[in-house]
């Protein structure tokens, strides 16, 4: 079960948040959404997915070699 934390806000900040809160959005959702706006990685899918290929480094070294060799096997000089 997710634990709850209580934070104190002054009235001005609370009213600012209240204005930004969307219908059916909890304050946790709202704060998460605002935090994401400040975090560039959340807007860049490549950063969000970094680590997708991070396991099995030896296999990936081999795979990268396969890609490199495949690319090298089709040279511009072959096109006339």
């Amino acid at each position, binding site marked *: 079960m997710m634990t709850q934390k209580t934070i104190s806000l002054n009235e001005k900040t609370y009213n600012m948040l209240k204005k930004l809160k969307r219908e059916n959005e909890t304050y946790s959702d709202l704060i998460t959404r605002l935090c994401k706006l400040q975090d*560039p*990685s959340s807007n*860049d*899918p*490549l*950063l*969000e*997915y*970094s*680590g*997708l*290929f*991070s*396991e*099995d*480094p030896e*296999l*990936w070294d*081999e*795979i*990268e070699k*396969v*890609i*490199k060799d*495949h*690319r*090298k096997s*089709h*040279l*511009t*000089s*072959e*096109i006339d």
Partner: protein
Amino acid sequence: MFLLDTNIVIGILRKREEILEKYKKLSEKNQKIYLTTYSLSEIYLVFKDQDFKKKFPEKRKIQKKLFNKLVELLKSQNRIIALSIKDAKKLGDLFYILKVNGSPIPVLDAIIGAIAISRNLIVLTSDKNHFETVKQLISEFKVEFW
């Protein structure tokens, strides 16, 4: 504006520290960073790798599924480029220049290079050899080696 070569995309996805740190800095500056459909095809080739298929059949399926999601997200941000007619004209010029100079390079490097020249993008790559050739032959070609 920048254009990622396949080795940089894989470097980010492999969490290669040096590449990832440089990429984060670039991303933080809200620079427009593109990649090509040709890099996607090279990565899709990965999922056909026999070793990968045999050793990690389930992992390969999951990674492919997640990679498809990543492609959709990049597509929604208009960050995936394919060869346009304008790019094709530049590619023809580049093929000719490489041929008359007797400097063959991989066709995919030429395609990525031509797209970058045509759209005034800086190529980010870890492959110095072939893109260096393009740089020497075409002054307007911009590249950074990571």
